[in-house]
């Protein structure tokens, strides 16, 4: 194992910079993945809220968002029946309650995945911190050596 106190040469510094860049790219991918999971989770929560509100409306009008901040008042013909994508591009009809249960289960799955991705990201960041410290001390050593030479 390399002596951490030994002065670092230019090549070692460059290698560390490359490691840092590589870890940075990996971390970026995991951050994107976390964001996707979070979006999915929020979407599922919103769907649950809508399904519950539709039932509570009891045949009355509900606000239907049509994008761009616009909404219309709409009456849902069958609030008890929900068409839901269960995966593999398959859509099935479920009761309102079953659809909510399904979405809750999905949220739990997404939260579990988020936890795993976040753990991996934490590990990567810890490694990046370690490399950063090494690079910083390398620069300081190089600067000190330069001053002595001067």
């Amino acid at each position: 194992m390399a002596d951490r106190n030994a002065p670092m040469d230019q090549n070692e510094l460059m290698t560390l910079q490359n490691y840092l860049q590589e870890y940075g790219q990996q971390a970026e991918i995991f951050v994107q993945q976390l964001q996707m999971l979070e979006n999915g989770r929020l979407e599922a929560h919103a769907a649950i809220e809508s399904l519950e509100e539709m039932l509570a409306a009891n045949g009355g009008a509900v606000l239907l968002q049509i994008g761009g901040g616009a909404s219309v008042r709409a009456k849902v013909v069958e609030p008890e029946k929900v068409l839901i994508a269960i995966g593999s591009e398959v859509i099935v009809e479920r009761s309102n309650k079953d659809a909510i249960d399904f979405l809750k289960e999905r949220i739990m799955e997404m939260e579990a995945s988020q936890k795993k991705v976040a753990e991996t990201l934490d590990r990567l960041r810890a490694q990046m911190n370690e490399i950063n410290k090494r690079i910083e001390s390398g620069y300081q050593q190089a600067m000190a050596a330069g001053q002595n030479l001067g």
Partner: protein
Amino acid sequence: MFGGLREKLMAARQRLGGSIEAAVAKAETEEGAVPAPESPSPVAAPPQKSPSPPSTPSFVERVRVLITERELIVSENDLDEALSELEMTLLESDVALPATDAIIASVQKNLVGRHRKIGESVDALVVNALKGALLDVLGSGFDLKEYITKHERPVKILFTGVNGTGKTTTVAKIGYYLKKEGFTVVIGAGDTYRAGAIEQISVHAERIGIKVIQHQEGADPSAVLFDAVQYAQSHKLDVVLADTAGRFHNKANLMSQLEKIKRVMKPDLVVYVDEAVAGNDAVTRAFEFDKTVGADAVVLTKADMDSRGGAAISIAHTIGKPLMFLGVGQAYDDILPFEPAKVVDELLDCGT
């Protein structure tokens, strides 16, 4: 790995077993309700062959078998609900529809019409049916070591796939795996398109002690990979691992570049890399890639983060190409050769 699917399969296994147990109990109740059979003849007559197909045994036949042979014939009706639940379980786990259909058909075929001896473990019956169905769908895997051993060297392996799925890291991991297995390897840095890709593969190669052939950013990837093959030939190396830029199958210019790479380096294997967490999307993309440039095997990365397991279960069946490796973590040795029997045992909790 695939924890969610494992839990759901356990529930499906119990549900199927429960359905069969219920059928046994029902048949035993019915046995008490029908008139007693005529006194048995001193020499037991061989059981008559049923005129109806095994999937639809009549009530009389079921009771007869129960009385004379102490067996139960499992009928389609007994399993209807449990199979329907299994179907939902698989679809919810992102197992592709054709693979789901194949699994259900196989379980049904294996269970319906079975003469189950009373006392024989229902669970064993169910597990064997599920095991057989999953193994049929998973295929036989792809033994890279065996392929290299039996093939003329250097074996040239081209890695393709969409952006950001961990292709370059996978090349490094497979390089490390092969080196550990005693093969000599060179890596061709064929991703000359993405900024930093050449540095990335060089860093990996340096860390695992494998020679990397590289040109500068923006160079023709065919030329880089041709040089990598030349290097392997002149140094009598066993394997060339060719990294390439990520691309989508509908990008015509990038796909024609891939065609050129194939013409120039003449790969022995084209390996498609995607991430397990992409689920059914990964299966669809693999299918499109195979249609466009062809693929001989598949590697799925980030399998450790995939609780559903849908892509891993369906990909071989859907595109007809074997799964070769599963990426399961960040370290170089976090790559597992895909062994269907082992995966199925894990999924069904049959730890052997």
